[in-house]
């Protein structure tokens, strides 16, 4: 996910308190193991946290319905997406609820603050949506994620532009944010490697007038335009580019994977826009049998299509279930099991590198049609009509 933040001093201060006595043996109370889920469940971005919560819920309910020897209790924590709320919640989860594992934190910003606490408390955690590259670079032993990071995403989209769209001139725009700028630069490096020429510009997310960017793009006359940033700006940008007579296919990353993109551009202006995301949203089950079954089960249970990060959280839950099935009920045993897990999931192969990153590097592309964003396919193989 794209909500990055600054690691607050409070996270560092919190470390001591969280390393409580028996947290190492916590989790195995009789015949149940508690797995937590932490994210913004009621705040302004809850729209992208409820789907992964439900994905995880589905996996645990399916598991418990088989009457296993050790059941899994699923407990949710509402951080409002804020690091300062996530830290005390994580401490509570470790010391009071004695969780054996955690799915989340969902956003990169809160992860940066809460992950050190989880590390200190020796609780294995798998995020389904925190994509910030730096999270993997702390040497955390208990941290994992099941979503490819922003660099992988940039490479996937860059290669899609160069090999699938065969674009020769690519115009790169970013919103100067911590998320948008590195993503745009990775895309740029990848299309240049493939022999395309590029030109770039950056916009001010506060501003509403992009005419300088439009004029620059017009002079460059690109085959493809990539924007690193969020959907609200992407929509306005598409509108002004098209009004200014800039053709070229518009592409963006997971920050733009929202129906608000088409709305911001107005009418059908955004049609044909391609949005890449390391996440798999596949309500029709076109990506494969596992994905199809997941979509059907999800729909049957929640009476809604699987949303963003549902499949990733389902896979994270599957990883914990596999650990418990193999007889691991303490956090440390579960963690060492996670380092060896290698089984197919819905969104990707569930397998972690030693740093906790997923080994699969799939990036999926979605094409705007009207106000919908249907899946086009894997960025390596998808074709555009």
């Amino acid at each position, binding site marked *: 996910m794209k909500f990055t933040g600054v690691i607050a001093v409070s996270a560092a201060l919190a470390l001591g308190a969280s390393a409580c006595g028996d947290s190492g043996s916590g989790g195995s109370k009789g015949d149940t193991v508690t797995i937590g889920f932490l994210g913004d469940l009621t705040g302004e971005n809850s729209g992208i946290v409820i789907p992964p919560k439900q994905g995880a819920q589905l996996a645990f309910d399916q598991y418990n319905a088989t009457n296993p020897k050790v059941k899994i209790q699923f407990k949710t924590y509402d951080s409002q997406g804020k690091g300062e709320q996530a830290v005390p919640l994580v401490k509570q989860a470790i010391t009071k609820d004695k969780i054996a594992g955690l799915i989340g934190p969902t956003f990169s910003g809160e992860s940066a603050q809460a992950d050190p606490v989880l590390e200190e408390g020796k609780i294995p955690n798998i995020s389904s949506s925190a994509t910030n590259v730096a999270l993997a670079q702390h040497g955390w032993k208990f941290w994992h994620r099941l979503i490819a990071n922003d660099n992988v995403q940039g490479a996937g989209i860059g290669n899609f532009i160069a090999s699938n769209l065969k674009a020769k001139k690519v115009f790169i725009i970013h919103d100067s944010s911590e998320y948008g700028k590195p993503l745009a630069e990775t895309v740029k490096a990848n299309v240049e490697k493939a022999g395309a020429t590029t030109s770039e*510009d950056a916009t*001010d997310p506060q501003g509403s007038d992009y*005419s*300088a*960017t439009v*004029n620059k793009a017009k002079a460059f006359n690109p085959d493809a335009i990539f924007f690193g940033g969020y959907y*609200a700006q992407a929509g*306005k940008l598409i509108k002004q580019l098209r009004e200014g007579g800039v053709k070229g296919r518009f592409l963006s990353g997971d920050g733009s994977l929202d129906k608000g993109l088409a709305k911001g551009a*107005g*009418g059908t202006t955004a049609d044909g826009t391609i949005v890449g995301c390391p996440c798999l949203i596949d309500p029709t089950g076109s990506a494969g049998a596992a994905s199809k079954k997941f979509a059907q089960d999800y729909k049957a249970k929640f009476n809604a299509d699987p949303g963003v990060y549902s499949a990733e959280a389902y896979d994270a839950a599957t990883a914990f279930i596999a650990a418990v099935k193999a007889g691991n009920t303490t956090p440390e045993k579960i963690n060492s099991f996670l380092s060896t897990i290698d089984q197919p999931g819905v969104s990707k192969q569930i397998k972690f590198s030693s740093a906790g990153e997923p080994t699969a590097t799939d990036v999926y592309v979605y094409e705007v049609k009207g106000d919908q964003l249907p899946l086009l396919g894997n960025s390596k193989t998808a074709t555009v009509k």
Partner: protein
Amino acid sequence: MNNLISQFWPYTIDGLSLGAIYALVALGYTMVYGVLRLINFAHSEIFMIGTFAVLGMLHLFGMPSNVGGFALVGLLIVLAVAGGLASGGSAVILEYVAYRPLRRHGASRLAALISAIGASLFLQQLFARIVVPWAFDLPKEKGALPIQGHFVEKSDVIHIGSFELSNDRLIVIVGAVLMMVLLDVFVNRTKLGRGIRATAQDPETAVLMGVNIDRIVTATFAIGGAMAGVAAALYMLRFEETRFDVGFLLGIKAFTAAVLGGIGNLRGALVGGIVLGLFEMYGSAIFGSEWQNVVAFSVLVLVLMFRPTGILGESLQQARA
């Protein structure tokens, strides 16, 4: 640099249309400053209220699309009047609630400044939390999201070589200049205008000469607000989108334009707005769009270093008695 030369006309046109909107909003800052020596920081919210009034009017008309010809001129006049009334009216109320009690009790200008900042934040949050969700039938937590309104199909009206002028930019530039000329005539030729100038020049003498200061202040806020309302209509034509904090950056830019041209000076607002708009665009062309604001404020600092009172310098009270 190459970029600027090959795309000189588009950048110039965009700079002019952006500058025209800055200039119209700048009038409100400059007039209030001229009369009261107060920087009305809530003016950006007066502009915001105008954009929502225009949008509400469009909704009343059932969001007409592809209006053209005389119908477009008529619609624009209606929208400008709606925006002007809403903004002018709220500016008067603002003055009555936030500034007049302070003036009555002889509070310092700093107190009025704090009151202005408070009013600005209050109005922003009021719209985000209550007014917008209520008026546009949105769930409460969605009030901070942008709202669109599209009513003119944009097309090029003039097309000579690399010189392209689209209908919306043309209307923005012509509309803004027209309003400026009207205001200039009003301030220089009418009785009320003379009262405004007299108050700006020397409030105490003006009172002795029989000028009703409170009436003049109300008129100043109403006119400055109305100009922001017209600017809001032009803004909606050009960008077709607004939100509760739309005035924030634009207000700062307009205030900059007012200072750049010479605060308190009506013609200075026009010059300041246009200069600022052009420099922003040329700066973006040369250094990249992320430098747009840096260029704008560097220009301001440079101008003030050599001309501390702004480009045109003189203020409202000296602009011919």
